């Protein structure tokens, strides 16, 4: 029997609220299957299993807030008899409906409905506010008249303002931890982009509209390939030691329209053809903004890339997302003066930056990485 624990979905997630089970006891699951949906401060995340087997027991009720690492279900290995082993975690967990000791009771909604006073319900109807989307501040999470009035003052009904506030808190916690624990160093390199831009224009001209590639995807691929020679930038710092990653799973910083950002991963980027990488990027952005990400995407990044060129900035010196050891930034691709063979020309360039963990690497290595990144971008046809 295997314990299935709530995985960490990033440095800024300590707990999550179980919204829904996607499996029931007796269901057979395989790697990558979504077993539950958990609400975090940033999104409702599809939690996947990385084990195969049969669901034996679900140990947590929907609506319960649970810390990361909590056993939320038990699985039987393929071929394992249901009654063969008394599941220890299930035993500990079995005595109550929300059995995990550390679990906190969320608002106890009878049959999925939040407790709400008649006056608050009437006012919600008047204001067009859906009480189910309002966080209750009353006893047992009851939605009060004041909660409804507050929600009704927002331009869009629902929990978006609360989500934005929670996301800001989560970002603050992760970035404060990063600046407290990680000794950053920062490097910048101006990279000529005329070859990449010309190649991309020609490539897109022969592609259909729906298959066009953005420069952001080209930059991601170049970063991923350059990283293959720099394991000291691609990995995580865990329990006092650095663990390099064989795979390159690029976290992509994605701004959310309502404010805040998430940085889910695209897995195994060096192995993805550019067209597929573009499709993965488009899909990730779409789902991130719709609040529909997978647990592996939140927990897997080995390094993050942020691109603020869209916002018009020349360069960005980003804060490392713990437990990662580096983050790469891109500013705006724009025509700038460039000296080549003794002549000044207007050439599209981009400022690429690296923020890296000085416990793991030194500036010399970081500089070599940026040089390699620049070299990769001069050979776009090989990306």
């Amino acid at each position, binding site marked *: 029997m295997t314990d299935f624990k709530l995985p960490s979905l990033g440095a800024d997630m300590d707990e999550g609220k179980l919204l829904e089970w996607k499996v029931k006891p007796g269901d057979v699951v395989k790697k990558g299957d979504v077993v539950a949906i958990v609400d975090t401060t940033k999104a409702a995340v599809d939690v996947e299993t990385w084990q195969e087997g049969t669901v034996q027991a679900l140990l947590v009720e929907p609506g319960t807030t649970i810390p990361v690492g909590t056993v939320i279900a038990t699985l039987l290995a393929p071929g394992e008899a249901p009654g063969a082993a008394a599941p220890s975690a299930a035993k500990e967990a079995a005595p109550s409906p929300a059995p995990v000791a550390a679990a906190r009771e969320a608002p106890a909604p009878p049959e999925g409905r939040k407790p709400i006073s008649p006056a608050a319900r009437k006012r919600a109807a008047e204001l067009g506010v859906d009480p189910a989307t309002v966080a209750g501040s009353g006893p047992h999470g009851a939605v009060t008249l004041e909660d409804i009035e507050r929600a009704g003052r927002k331009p*869009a009904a629902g929990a978006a303002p609360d989500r934005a506030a929670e996301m800001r808190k989560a970002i603050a916690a992760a970035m404060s931890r990063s600046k407290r624990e990680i000794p950053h160093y920062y490097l910048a390199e101006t990279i000529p982009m005329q070859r990449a831009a010309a190649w991309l224009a020609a490539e897109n001209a022969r592609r259909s*509209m*729906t298959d066009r590639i953005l*420069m952001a995807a080209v930059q991601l691929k170049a970063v991923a390939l350059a990283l293959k020679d720099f394991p000291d930038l691609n990995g995580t710092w865990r329990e006092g030691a650095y663990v390099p990653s064989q795979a390159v799973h690029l976290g992509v910083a994605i701004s959310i*329209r309502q404010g805040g950002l998430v940085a889910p991963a695209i897995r195994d980027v060096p192995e993805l053809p550019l067209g597929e990488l573009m499709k993965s990027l*488009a899909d990730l952005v779409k789902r991130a903004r719709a609040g529909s990400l997978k647990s592996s995407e939140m927990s897997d990044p080995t390094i993050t890339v942020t691109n603020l060129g*869209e916002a018009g900035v020349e360069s960005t010196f980003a804060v490392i997302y713990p437990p990662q050891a580096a983050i790469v930034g891109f500013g705006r691709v724009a025509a700038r003066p460039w000296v080549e063979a003794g002549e000044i020309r207007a050439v599209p360039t981009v400022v690429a930056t690296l923020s890296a963990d000085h416990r793991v690497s030194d500036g010399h290595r970081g500089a070599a990485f940026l040089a390699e990144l620049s070299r990769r971008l001069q050979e776009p046809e090989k990306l």
Partner: protein
Amino acid sequence: MNAVELRPLVFAELRKIAPELEEGDVAPDKLLRDQVDLDSMDWLNFLIAVHQRFGVEISESDYAVLDTLDRICEFVAARNPQGS
């Protein structure tokens, strides 16, 4: 269908990308990307939506002239007068 008649239809496609937009938020003759927070992914998705909705091809070299809602509507009207 002329450009003025197309405007609400094109705006509806834009709202699918930027759902926070309300009627009147976008001045049709002003630069679109100065008024709406659109990154390059949003922009590409918007143009793909216009392409799929109205059946017009839009090359990358056209992007530079498609800078206002009016110009996008004129572009569509010139290539697909039926607007469907």
